[in-house]
């Protein structure tokens, strides 16, 4: 690999144009590449993103996926591509509107415009061919699109993308993306050697000739940019950082599962959870792991429970509709105290809802969905890195407490790509092989410790441990028991385990000053956006801090004292809540964000909420506006007789 000096030497652009156009220094910038699907915008973006990460930038990449598998060309809903946010500090979320977009055609651009994805002053590099296209229908579409977008102050830069590419290839559908990569390399001063490496890797299965063709297109793009563009951006890298890995949340969940020592996943495909299994399907067997694609989610849950019961904790991965189907088995896991890890990658609901979009609306279902009293653990990683470590924690709790553990992630974590500190696997992350030693005489399968409710489970193969596990009410010996005392006692023991786990937890840390006018509380994937908004609010002189919760059951300790130090507490969530001021909505009948609801019951604090169900990750700017509009008037008493 090229040495530093070589790199510097070859840092694009090495051209006179570069000198003519001194780059504008930025701390962060958001760019995206959109095209018809199949034109390779995604690969272009991926290479740009990973090269930026390697150069030391903070990066957050999101795929732009059309609703259909293969949408018609030049259609607004068909926009496909990649959105990359780079920064000179770690990037924790997708940010606000896009600053620079490269569009292969005006329809793809229009799709983004309609979703409000682009900043008012966004720079738009667009293929000029359509404007003057032979087909007048297309020319008309171009004009209509420009008309529709005229309200915004986009800065259009017409680029003869296809025309240029045709000088090197016959079928431009296969080449444009590399040309565009060249444009971007010049604009953002990306390391061309690294880009060539990535290209080489991407086409490793193709011929040398294919590789060369792509590199030529890349250089052509660089050349065109250097000769025609009068703007460049520099987003300086971070000072040397510790070793990092870059992946999305589902890949992190899969690797975390491996690192936890779990050896069996039973699942049924469902967006956006499926890709967890795609990763494992490739590698799990190498670790001695087994992946079972069941006939449905019910069977997947049952299969995992059977596996856990007879060996080591197993897990299943799903999303809303699948979680619904698993409900009955989750109750059985709780009742039989069979360890189980359930990952719910939340998507837009209710029902089939918005399968590819983000939402945080399964919280209450995860907590309370199972009929009867079903004490269990619910935790929610807040970052892609935490997706990895959450699996290790979940497996350990499930085993130690004979408990069902639900891990709530969402489509934002699942599809967002971000570098994070490389995990360094250690032995105690991994589950031990099941202990099949004989069961000491007199021990029973549910010898609950009267204080902690903990007991040691027997695994088939353990001599002397024979018993029948049952979902019916049962006593210490696992005998079916219908009497009043046993049901009260066994219910108490199952619940007690949560109190014990709670007693080991510490209060969460406040982000920012630990007292002030407003505390923003969040959970799950919104952490980065919330904290960025809080930073900006503080910069604007607002006394705002934030708090992020990982454990929803048992609820993290010490919340009330923290809340008491703020004049107002408000959750920010990607789920539905009624807005005060809307017709018929009163303080009393208002349906609140799911975390807000929990925190009110837990702390008796008048927790307000600002939530949206737009099917997209939270934008820091939107949160900032919500903070401003919800700041308590200096006169408001902290807790009003709200309800």
């Amino acid at each position: 690999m090229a040495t530093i000096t070589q790199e510097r030497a070859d840092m694009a652009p090495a051209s006179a144009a570069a000198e003519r156009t001194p780059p504008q220094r930025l701390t962060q910038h958001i760019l995206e590449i959109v095209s018809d699907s199949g034109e390779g915008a995604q690969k272009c973006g991926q290479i740009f993103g990973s090269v930026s990460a390697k150069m030391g930038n903070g990066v957050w990449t999101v795929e732009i996926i059309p609703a259909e598998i293969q949408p018609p060309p030049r259609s607004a809903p068909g926009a496909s591509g990649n959105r990359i946010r780079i920064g000179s500090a770690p990037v924790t979320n997708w940010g606000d509107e896009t600053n620079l977009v490269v569009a292969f055609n005006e329809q793809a651009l229009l799709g983004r415009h309609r979703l409000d994805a682009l900043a008012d002053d966004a720079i738009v590099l667009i293929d000029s061919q359509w404007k003057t296209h032979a087909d007048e229908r297309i020319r008309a579409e171009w004009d209509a699109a420009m008309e529709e977008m005229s309200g915004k102050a986009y800065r259009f830069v017409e680029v003869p993308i296809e025309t240029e590419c045709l000088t090197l290839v016959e079928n431009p559908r296969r080449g444009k993306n590399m040309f565009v990569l060249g444009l971007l390399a010049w604009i953002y001063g990306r390391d061309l050697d690294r880009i060539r490496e990535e290209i080489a890797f991407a086409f490793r299965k193709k011929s040398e000739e294919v590789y060369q063709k792509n590199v030529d297109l890349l250089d052509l793009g660089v050349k065109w940019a250097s000769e025609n563009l009068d703007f460049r951006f520099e987003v300086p890298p971070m000072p040397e950082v510790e070793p990092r890995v870059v992946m999305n949340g589902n890949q992190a969940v899969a690797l975390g599962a491996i690192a936890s020592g779990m050896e069996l996943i039973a699942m049924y495909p469902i967006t956006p959870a499926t890709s967890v299994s795609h990763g494992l399907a490739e590698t799990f067997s190498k670790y001695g792991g087994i992946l079972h694609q069941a006939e449905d989610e019910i069977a997947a849950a049952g299969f995992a429970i059977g596996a856990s019961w007879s060996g080591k904790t197993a897990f299943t991965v799903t999303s809303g509709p699948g979680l619904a189907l698993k409900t009955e088995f989750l109750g059985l896991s709780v009742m039989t105290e069979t360890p189980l890890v359930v990952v719910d990658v939340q998507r837009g609901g209710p029902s089939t809802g918005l399968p590819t979009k983000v939402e945080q609306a399964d919280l209450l279902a995860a907590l309370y969905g199972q009929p009867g009293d079903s004490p269990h653990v619910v935790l929610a990683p807040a970052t892609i890195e935490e997706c990895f470590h959450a699996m290790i924690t979940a497996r350990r709790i499930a085993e130690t407490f004979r408990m069902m553990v639900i891990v709530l992630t969402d489509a934002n974590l699942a599809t967002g790509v971000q570098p994070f500190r490389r995990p360094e696997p250690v032995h105690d992350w991994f589950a031990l092989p099941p202990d099949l030693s004989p069961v000491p005489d007199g021990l029973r399968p549910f010898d609950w410790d009267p204080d902690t409710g903990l007991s040691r489970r027997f695994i088939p193969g353990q001599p002397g441990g024979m018993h029948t596990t049952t979902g019916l009410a049962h006593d210490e010996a696992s005998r079916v028991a219908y009497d009043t005392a046993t049901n009260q006692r066994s219910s108490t023991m199952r619940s007690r385990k949560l109190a014990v786990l709670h007693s080991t937890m510490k209060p969460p840390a406040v982000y920012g000053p630990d007292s002030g006018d407003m505390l923003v509380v969040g959970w799950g994937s919104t952490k980065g956006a919330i904290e960025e908004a809080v930073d900006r609010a503080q910069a604007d002189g607002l006394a705002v801090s934030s708090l992020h919760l990982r454990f929803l059951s048992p609820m993290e300790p010490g919340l009330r004292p923290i809340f008491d130090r703020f004049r107002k507490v408000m959750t920010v969530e990607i789920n539905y809540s009624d807005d005060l001021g809307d017709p018929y909505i009163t303080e009393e009948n208002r349906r609140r964000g799911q975390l807000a609801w929990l925190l009110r019951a837990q702390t008796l604090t008048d927790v307000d909420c600002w939530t949206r169900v737009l099917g997209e990750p939270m934008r820091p700017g939107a949160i900032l506006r919500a903070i401003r509009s919800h700041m308590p008037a200096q006169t408001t008493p902290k807790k009003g007789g709200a309800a």
Partner: protein
Amino acid sequence: MSCSLLHSRSDDDQVFALGDYEAALPRWCPGCGDHGVLAAMQRLLVAEQLQPDQTVFVSGIGCSSRFPHYVKTYGFHGLHGRALPVACGIKMTRPDLTVFVVMGDGDCTSIGAAHWLHATRYNMNMTALLLDNNIYGLTKNQTSPTTPIAHTSNTHPYGAALPPMNPIEATLGFTNASFVAQTAEWIPGHMYATLRAAYRHNGFAFVRILQRCPVYTPDIFQAAVKKPELAELLVHDDGVVVPELDRIYTRQLRHDPGDIDAARRLAEPTDVIRLGVFYRNESHPRYEELLQTRRLTTDEKIQLLNQELDSYAV
């Protein structure tokens, strides 16, 4: 993953007697056919000297699903209709265990139908028993898919509207079916021989056991119990042959369990009750064998994981 577990066996020289397989006192009604099934199963456990701690009975919910509580092995009494997914998860994780599954007719053919079809296709090495009393017993007398047409129950006081489902015919249509048999609990000898054949079959052995419920369906099997000529025994060396029955059960038919077409013809509804092995084929792969992988040490795993993490390195 569990090969290593195979070595954790203990006291292999011990000899097990009937008492070693007896657990809680059965709570079924007097005269319930389930008692007989339990007896035959315990006889089999003794005959095959199955390690109690290496044997698992999995069931759903129903009168019949109380079965595991009465056998002193490991047991999993799970959810109504869901015995098979749990059993498959167990067998996949622990191929070293001997797995029996006990289901009722509602349990297996109604709410559990999807799992029944797919477990047949997975063809994991286990023995699945359908205790078919043609009724919902535990919930007190509702129609099941196998309830005879016009038979009255609490949900069909004017008689069942649909013709009964034929579980043998259905299973024979399921892809990968490898062992399909039918027996009757009131012919202990035949039931025992059938259970043994099922247990010895390497693959998913499905046995439908016609079972009397004196409380809710006393009439249904009465005739067959009284009149041996109403039953026809399918006999074959690769199936079940019970010489001691020859005197009473004179109606016998030689049927090669390898012949699927004949099996399906014989499974079609008739007024005779056919007992024996309809189909058997050990050539189908067993899912747990297809997926078994070498179990790794933690060190090996860490090494692999580090390699994989490196492939994600920035």
